[in-house]
């Protein structure tokens, strides 16, 4: 059981110690990590994913339930409590989607074969372009790859901690992803440039120059703002899908969307 993960400070890009004592994220909490490109967002979630013990470039340390995780937890995928979706939108493994998920399920010591088709079905909720079980993962589009890896993280990774690196960039239905993920008691960490995702999370970690600069908690006003933005986002999304489908944007369409 993971009740919380704790981040202990490391060094910023100039080599100075980060100015927080410790940062604990608890089960059921959604967290976003924001900051300019190169500010250290991806490095922070990589530290969490690797359960760093002062042995990454940032020198941070990560505790699980307040304790240093056992070696075995760090190195055995079957025991690893963390699933991460990176910014990669390409798979290099020359296997069909079914074979790929099969081997991953084996690595995670899952015996129920049903999970493979369930994962593909879930992935297809996140993407407009359907993935077949025979499709080789090397030819999946960026959006399909992301969708598959997110579904894989939720069902096969089945980890209590999920790290998502800029999911907004991949042409997937992010609202569906957020809805499914938020209904769990997992710790979900989004690295994001998306204002909707940033405002919908309970905690917001702000990065600068490789270090955690500050941590903000969601307030009532921001929750309202997020709801408005979400509405706007859906309308933009509607126009986007029309454009992607090759349709023309008419006056009527605009008045429906932005009335």
């Amino acid at each position, binding site marked *: 059981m993971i009740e919380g993960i704790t981040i202990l400070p490391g060094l910023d890009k100039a080599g100075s110690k980060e100015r927080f004592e410790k940062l604990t994220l608890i089960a059921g909490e959604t967290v976003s990590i924001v900051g300019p490109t190169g500010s250290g967002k991806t490095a922070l979630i990589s530290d969490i994913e690797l359960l760093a013990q002062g042995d990454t470039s940032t020198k941070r340390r990560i505790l699980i339930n307040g304790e240093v995780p056992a070696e075995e937890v760090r190195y055995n995928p079957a025991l690893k409590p963390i699933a991460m979706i990176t910014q990669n939108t390409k*798979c290099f493994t020359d296997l069909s989607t079914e074979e790929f998920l099969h081997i991953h399920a084996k690595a995670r010591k899952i015996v129920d074969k049903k999970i493979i088709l369930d994962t593909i079905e879930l992935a297809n909720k996140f993407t407009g372009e359907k993935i077949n079980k025979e499709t080789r993962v090397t030819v999946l589009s960026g959006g399909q790859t992301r969708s598959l890896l997110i579904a894989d993280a939720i069902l096969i990774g089945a980890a209590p901690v999920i790290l998502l690196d800029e999911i907004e960039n991949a042409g997937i239905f992010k609202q569906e992803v957020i809805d499914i993920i938020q209904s769990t008691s997992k710790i979900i960490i989004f690295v994001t440039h998306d204002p909707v995702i940033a405002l919908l999370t309970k905690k917001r970690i702000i990065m600068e120059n490789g270090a955690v600069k500050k941590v903000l908690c969601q307030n009532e006003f921001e929750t309202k703002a997020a709801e408005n933005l979400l509405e706007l986002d859906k309308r933009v999304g509607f126009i986007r899908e029309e454009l992607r489908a090759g349709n023309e944007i008419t006056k009527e369409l605009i008045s429906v969307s932005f009335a």
Partner: protein
Amino acid sequence: MKLLVIAGPPSAGKTSLTKQIIKRFKDELRVAFLKIDVVKAYEDIELSREFQIMTRKIYSGDLCPDHAGVMVLGDAVEWAESKAADLFIVESAGLCLRCSPYLNQGLGVVVLSSMAGIHTPEKMGAMVSLADIAVVTKIDLISQAEREVLIQKIKDVHPNVILMETNALQGTSLHRLYELISHSEDIDKDNLYLKGNPPIGTCTICVGKKEIGWKHHFGVVKKLDGQIAEYLYRGE
């Protein structure tokens, strides 16, 4: 003197890993380094310039590189000991994948790139199955799920290998490797043996006969179809 034999295909990240190991140990151990390659290698110059350690290289040229490794390793261990090295690192270019350069003492490390194909661990044969430690590199370039799939494939080939993943350019997550090196025992140089079986003895191909087809050769011959002799070794 501790001995570390590092093997793996070209561009897997052997030298990047070696650099991280040297960086970690150079202040507490006297490090010596030998590179075995076929045509060209620059690691000896690079490493001695960067870390001021003792380095050597040997080109196998027309000789099989693993064969050359076996031949020169005795002298190389003498050389490293004569220089009072505490840690001797041997980096070998794994090429034909028939053999592995690991010895019965010290640590054998196979380096595999996470960008390598999914069947690479099986294809690499003894280089994976006889290693003590497998280090998967370039993990920042692929998804976590894909990394786990590759690791599962390595475990299928060698269930007891100690696995670790790293971004060797940054040297992430290598504490465990450093611990294993620190705790590895000194070698007894008069009792060093190859872990794997060497290939079958000399035949007409080994001595340079170029004709194609088994009819032109004697010694150990193998047809396209049909069994080879029962007593012949068929890999690990």
